[in-house]
């Protein structure tokens, strides 16, 4: 089993925290529209979705490596 997985997941979690926490969050926290949708709304859900996809990808890779 890959030993790299825990640190990678930890990093992913840390990046997600950074992106959803001030001061970075304040970059998206504006009363603006992006493609007709509120900027913060788009930002939150797309970062969130990315987090989910990356987690799934990391775990998927691990599965492949197990013979």
């Amino acid at each position: 089993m890959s030993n790299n997985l825990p640190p990678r997941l930890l990093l992913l979690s840390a990046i997600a925290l950074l992106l959803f926490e001030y001061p970075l969050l304040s970059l998206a926290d504006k009363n603006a529209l992006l493609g007709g949708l509120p900027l913060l709304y788009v930002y939150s859900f797309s970062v969130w979705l990315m987090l989910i996809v990356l987690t799934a990808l990391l775990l998927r890779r691990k599965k492949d490596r197990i013979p």
Partner: protein
Amino acid sequence: MSLGVVLLCALLYIGILFATAWRVDAQAKKGQSKLMRNPYVYSLSLAVYCTAWTYYGSVGRASASGLSFLAIYLGPAIIAPLWYFLLRKMIVISKNQRINSIADFISARYGKSGHLATLVTVIALFGVIPYISIQLKAVSFSIDVLTEHQYPYFKPDAPLLADATFWVMLAMAVFTMLFGARKLDPNERHEGLVAAVAFESLVKLIAFWVVGLFVIYGLYNGLGDLFTQAAAQPETARLFSLSGAGVSPTSWTMYMLLSALAIMLLPRQFHVAVVENTHPRQVNTAMWLFPLYLLLINFLVLPIALAGKMILGSSVPSDTYVLTLPIHEHLHILSLIVFIGGFSAATSMVIVSSTAISIMVSNHLVLPALIRLKLIGQETTPRGASTLLDVRRISILGVLMLALLFLKSIGGSYDLVSVGLISFTAVAQFAPAALFGMYWRRGTRKGAIVGLWIGFLIWAYCLPAAAIAEAGFLSQSFITEGPWGIAWLRPYHLFGMEGMDNISHAAFWSLLLNTGAFLIVSLYTQPSALELTQANIFVNIHRYVAGEEYDVVKRAAKISDLRRVMGRFLDPSHVSGIFSNFEKENKVKLDQQKNAEPELINYAETQLAGIIGASSARLAIGSVAKEENITLEEVMQVLEQTREVLRYSKALEQKSSELETTTRQLIAANEQLKALDRLKADFITTVTHELRTPVTSIKALSKILLDYRAELPEEKLHSYLNILVSESERISRLINQVLDIEKIESGTDEYLPSEPFSLDEIVRTTAAGMAQLFRERSIEFTSDIPEETLEVAGNRDRIVQVVVNLLSNALKFCDTKEGRVSLSLQKTATEAVLCIGDNGKGIPPEQHEHIFDKFTQLNSKTEGKPQGTGLGLYITRKIVEHHGGSIKVVSALGKGATFEVRLPIYQPNF
């Protein structure tokens, strides 16, 4: 819509749940249920996290403060990647220790402490009962809204039996009692219940999306249209951003923290995620699927809230927008679907919460009391599983009744989100004890108890107590001015803290002081032997999973006693099963033994713990098993690992301190080398300078002699030649001295071992030799040399050099008109003391150390050219030091100078 229709729908829905649970349970009994091993079912069951609070409350929250509700779901989403080691470790530990609740988990970690188990249970009760009550409230008000206020939900005066909430609660209680306390199982698995919860998670998600899509495409032309319209009105446009909605960064952060902790520590989350888990691998799927579920259920919250605000405004409570929007459009079927969705969110939460809480209450509050009071577990008391299940069922009913009572007394005045957050803050208090406990062996039982108490009390003071005051049960001044007017005790501004909302404020202080107390008390208390073992198992669980656990507290019991005590809690067939399992696993025959091995007692206790909890099982088994004191050897065995770690860290520490010392030494050596280098350079400069002076004069005079030899008068010629000779002598003297220094410093000079010689004789001869010189310059020379022989060992010629050097110095520096030089030799017990004094100008005290250095000559501005080379005293000192002696000068300006040389007297070895 009539109340009858609504209630019928609710009961039909519960009927479907019954059928689902029943079928799955039946399959599980036959061992056919693959459903429970399905990671998707597991992930969906985690979605019990989304309660009526999510379903109704988030929309209400969003219509007041925009996307702030997201923090409650982002916390779990951010921590989910860490589940790979965090939650999985929790599961492996719990399976290994047969842990079946969060109270059990914390208690087991700290030496199966009964106190901790009870404390955690009480905190969970305080935190969760209001939370359950708001679910009942949500169901109640949704019925109210659906029946168009034929049935006002909040009727404190209505008799219990006339209240629909009571009947709904009863239906939930029956379901929970049937499926949450169906059978006694050491694994505490409830397949039917989990299947029902997973099913409910699907129902609420689908229902929410149905209403969301209806709002977006039925009431507006898609998301873009909805947001464009919302952007046009300042009242809704401000909800687009957190700053616009007035959400402070502190609250956002605290809510994320609270929810990240609650997702693992809430009793119901612990129950579905850990207790009902069938394989740690299921977590891998949940790590992405569960956050995806949260994302989906939250995606449409903001659009619904904006639509509600634009269409309905404040004509109805914003918590009800999900339901009132379809009603407003007279879509009855749709509103019923919405109702069922909300109902499923509430029921799943109530069912799982009350199951989890009832396990804790019966195992950690009721059973210990019954065992202590000898009402259970005795020969004469009713026996077996049925009693335990009855306790469990009564606990479920009791918890739900308490929740209903809470709702009827003060719960009605609270909105969904606040009560939920108060509950989150309560269970977050488990975090230091539970999470540190899994990674930090040093955490002790006392630390956990003190931390939990402090956190719990601050929580209780800052939130429920203040809420009671707000509800009018206490004076308002309690909040505004603090109790007895003490301002820093104001429950919303503890220690004068300002600028935080009530929840963040309480969470901040309680978690900070809880964690601090836990860490500090842990560091200052010693764990017991049992705590050490448990700590070791929790932290290093991966070493224990495959191998067997060793016991610290060695216990002895008769096998028959063990059978009897287990028989009081379990069916006889169950007990036999446990014993034969043990025989099979360990390949032993228990019939041939009379006394139970510690392994068997452990095994029995672990099995029993799965049913009645670790601390109760310990109490029950303890009634027959005598605990022996642990032997030193056994303690050593336990401590072996600790010692190994300590040794390792000590070795590391030593290495690093050694390195530090070496570094320091290297730096010092480097400094010394640099200084030496400087000295060497100085020395060469000085020597060459000293050499150049005579060479220059020799060159000049020789040139004169060469050119004007014939013209010079005889006496001039004579004087020039004299100067030439003396300058040459000076050069050769200098060269000799430099060679001397070289010899002395490099240690090639031969000093020891050498024959002893008599010092007095040397001094006498040298003084006599010099006497002529003194007489020539009419200097008064006195010497005082004792008759007895004074023997020192070393290099005779060098000692002569010392005496000559000192005497010539005295000769050079004594008073020019009435010069006086004295010499004395004395003997002490171990040393010979030679003093040579003059009556010259003396040496200023600040120069006393300095004059023994190389090329030091007293500043002779008044006397012009210095006399000598500046090496004499240096050489003298070196010689004396090499002979193991010392030299110093006693002098004051204008009072002459006396040099005192001390040399050790030769001690012949007999």
